[in-house]
Structures are given as C-alpha cells and as structure tokens.
C-alpha cells in the first residue's frame, strides 16, 4: 500500500511523531515516501529505516501555516496518488488535514491508534464516545485515505537507511491567510513535573478548587510532586506547567498515583510510560484502570485522608 507521510517540525526540529508515522506506513507495506515541507527541508534529517523516498518541498515559510501545507500536500497527492496519507494527530494536522479530505474527496479518520490491511482494504481503529468504545472503520470507494495517527502508539523508526531524495518546487502559493507571527513559551514552571520520580496527579474528580490545598499537602507528605489533568488547567485552578498529557507534559516517573482522573486518551498518552501507575477512582469503568498497574475503586477523599494519617 503506497504511503505518503507528512513530516512535522517546529523551530527547525523534526517532531518525534514523524518517525512513528514511518513505522506505521511500513507496517502497511509501503513504499513509504516522506514529504518535508519547509524553508530548509534538507536540514531536517529524514534518514530513517523504512523510508524509501524523501520529497523535499521548499517554501518561503519557516514555520507551519495551514494554507501552505494544504496546497503543497494537495499537489503531492494529485501527482503521486498515494493509497494512504499519514499525518500525526496533532494541532497542526487538524488545521489542514480535514480540509484536504473534503476538497479531494479522500477517506478520513483521526486519532487512529491501529491500522491494518484486511483483504487488501484499509481498516483503521479508533475510539468513540469518550473512549468508552472502539470501532473499526473502512473506506469503501475511496482511492486514497488520509489518516491522522495518535502519537506514541507506534515506535519511532530507527536512524539508518538510505532513502532516495528528490526536490520538488512548491506550487504557486496564493496569499497565506493564517500567518505564523511568533512563538510564546509556556510560563516557566516552579517545578518540572517531567523530572519527578513520584507524581501525585489529580483530575476532575476532586470536584472543587478548594480541595487543591489538601492534595498539595498530601503530595508534600508523600514526597511527591503534584500534577494535574487538563480539566483543572482549563478551569484555571492550576498552571499549565503542572499538566500531564498531550497538550501538557509527557512524564515517566517511577510512580504515578492518579486520583480522580478518568483517563482521557490525551492524558494517558502523557503518562502511560510511567514505571508504576496506581489509580484511585470511584468509577470502576474508568479508562485509567485499563492502563494502571494497580487500581482502587474508592472515594479519593477517603483514601487521601487515610494516606495523610499514615506514619
């Protein structure tokens, strides 16, 4: 199955998801071509095992702009007719992938975490209904399917290989209507949760801003660093620097104690590599119990109180 991967890079650095897409493309059979779109595409290393061809497209813009990626990729799809186009399930891809799909009539699925060929047909697996169910999707009548693959599922393709490299001229790009201005760093953290050996992570289950000091105190007592899931940052209760997950930090502590976190996929992506995961949640069906090593179906406040009492 011919595959076209679109490389994702930011500030001159290739993002890891690009190499994961190569692995997924290889698993579909290949050949695998990788499109690198940028001001200096040759500077971005794409020599990875499993890459058959690198297509470098030089554009004026150094950073991602969705009009630019859309026009370049539409040109490449029209010329090469790949059966599968692979993008990372990322903020950048959401800005242009679905636009290409609707314009060219491609099959489309996002946040895909498994792909396979079944009797020659592509089957993509993803979650629905708050990740509580999974589904196999098929794409009848589609010559080409665009998939946005969930990061951290496929292992990155290792360095090596000797892909053929070609350079393509960019199509005539009309005025880019959404233009990158600058990057703003997230506020500097008081602590780096990515450095901690032991994280106490709390989520929506704590219910109330007033409860946060209880868990700050508990973290201190246990010798843990306090981390949170996205809803607490969205609510403005904790800074983004404490957030674990796709839009926060990816962490890998020795111990991850999750209290009141149901386990949205974006959260799980950020902590599943932790050494030992312990989850406390009142909902026995909470997704986090699928990832945790130890689980307790219990009231998190009662458990917190008992932990506080321990010598």
């Amino acid at each position: 199955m011919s595959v076209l991967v679109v490389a994702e890079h930011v500030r001159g650095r290739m993002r890891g998801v690009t190499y994961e897409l190569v692995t997924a493309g290889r698993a579909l059979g290949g050949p695998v071509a990788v499109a690198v779109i940028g001001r200096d595409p040759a500077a971005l290393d794409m020599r990875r095992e499993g890459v058959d061809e690198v297509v470098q497209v030089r554009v004026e813009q150094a950073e991602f702009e969705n009009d630019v990626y859309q026009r370049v990729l539409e040109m490449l799809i029209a010329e090469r007719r790949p059966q599968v186009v692979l993008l990372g399930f990322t903020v950048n891809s959401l800005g242009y992938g679905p636009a290409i799909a609707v314009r060219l009539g491609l099959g489309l699925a996002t946040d895909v975490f498994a792909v396979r060929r079944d009797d020659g047909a592509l089957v993509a697996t993803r979650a629905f209904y708050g990740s509580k169910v999974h589904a196999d999707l098929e794409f009848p009548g589609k010559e080409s399917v665009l998939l946005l693959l969930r990061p951290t599922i496929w292992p990155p393709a290792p360095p090596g290989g000797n892909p053929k490299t070609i350079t393509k001229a960019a199509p005539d790009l009309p005025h880019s209507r959404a233009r990158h201005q600058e990057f703003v760093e997230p506020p500097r953290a008081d602590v780096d949760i990515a450095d901690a050996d032991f994280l106490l992570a709390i989520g929506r289950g704590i219910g109330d801003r007033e409860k946060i000091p209880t868990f700050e105190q508990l973290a201190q007592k246990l010798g843990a660093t306090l981390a949170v899931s996205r809803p607490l940052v969205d609510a403005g209760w904790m800074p983004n620097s404490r957030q674990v997950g796709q839009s926060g930090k990816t962490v890998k502590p020795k111990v991850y104690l999750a209290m009141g976190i149901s386990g949205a996929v974006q959260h799980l992506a950020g902590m599943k590599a932790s050494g030992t995961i312990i989850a406390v949640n009142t909902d026995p069906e909470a997704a986090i119990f699928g990832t945790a090593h130890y689980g307790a179906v219990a009231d998190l406040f009662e458990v917190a109180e008992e932990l506080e009492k321990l010598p």
Partner: protein
Amino acid sequence: MKLVVCVKQVKVLGDEVGFTADSRDVDPDYLDLALNEWDACATEEALRIRERLGEGEVVAITAAPAGPELALRRCLAMGVDRAIRVESAAVDPISIARALAGAVGGESPDLVLCGVQSSDVVQGSTGTALAELLELPRVAVVTKIDWSGSGPATVYRELEGGLIDVVEVDTPALLTVQTGINQPRYATLRAIKLAEQKEIPAVPAPDRAEPAYRVRRMFAPPKGQGAKILQGPPADVARQIADIVKERLK
C-alpha cells in the same frame, strides 16, 4: 457584525454499553444527550466577543435530525440571538460539514466559531472541513482570540507541550475553539424559560452525502491486562498504596 457558532448535541455514553443489532453503533438506549463541551466554550467566546464589541448578532447552527433540541436551547439560554437546525442525520465530520455549509454560508458571518471536537465522534475535523467548503481562512485549536471586529484577528494556537503559536488570520475566518479558553456561563432560570419558547427553524441540508468512512464494527475495548485491584476499606487501600510507593521508589 455577525458571528456564527456551530454546535452539536452530543451523545454521552454512561457506564454500561450495548450495541445496535448490526454492531455499527452504540444502542441509543445507552446514550444521553448534551451540548458538546467544546461548543459551549465556542458559544461563550462568541457571546464575549459580541459583548466586547458592544454590537453584533450571534447565531447558533446545528446539523441534526428532528428530536430533542436541548443543545440549541442551551445556546439560546446562554444568550445567542437565533438558532437554526439543519435537517441532517449525518454522523461523520465531512458529511456534517457539508450539511452545515449552506446555512452557515447563508448568514455571511464575519466570524465562525466551532468547538475543536465533539465528545462522541472526536474527529476534530468538522470545523476545518467546513472552512474549506466556505473558502474561509481558518485556525484550529485556538486558545485565545484578539479581534477588533474587522481586519485580521490575532489568535493563539496551543501546540503539544504547551508552546503557543501566535497566528494572524484574515477575516472572515473560522476558528475551532479549545476548552479552557473561557468558562461557559450558566443560564438563568428565566433565560432558560425564554429559550424554550423561541422558534428554531429547520432548514433542509443539501443531499450530497459523501461519508469520510463507514463503521465496520463497534465494540467494547479489549480489557488490557488491567489494573490489579486493591481491595478493602480506604484505610487498607491507603496502606497498600503506601507500600507499593515505598517499594518502587527504593
């Protein structure tokens, strides 16, 4: 000045699940309805822009079959001026975008806001596909909007890891809004009552259906190895947790 918000009445699955006879979807008996969380934020943001500018109209549009209209009623109760339902049974994002395009484009909005994604189908694609159909500039996953009501807007896009990309986008534009951009307001009881009396016109969708995919089979996720469950009252659970932590941090 006109703002359009595209909203969805999502289906929320509780603790139990059963599937339809053809195994292609969840049995509706297991599903509750709600206004999609991301769309509540998009609606709130539209209302705030209108309040900031001191003028303008906010129109909420959904694509849905006839039935309960609690999502649009909630938008009306929050303060949108009008609501429109496009008659459509579309499920996949490309078909929903096609269904919405006529009604949204017909309003000639200065700004269109959508939620980043819906909690039930979670493709994150409807807004961007809709922008393409309307030939609007767009930015996806927006966490801040700075706009004077005319000319380009400056918006934040939050990338993975928290890095913020500041983007200048020409208007009219379509933005998909991330949760956390605001805290959606609660409607007053009076507003809820008034919203219930408002007329919600239904308009037909174009008949062009071209789904992005077909569900072959929907199923309960395989139980991984799963967690070893710590038994006992909270005091026992706490003691076991403390033991595991001590052992692993050695």
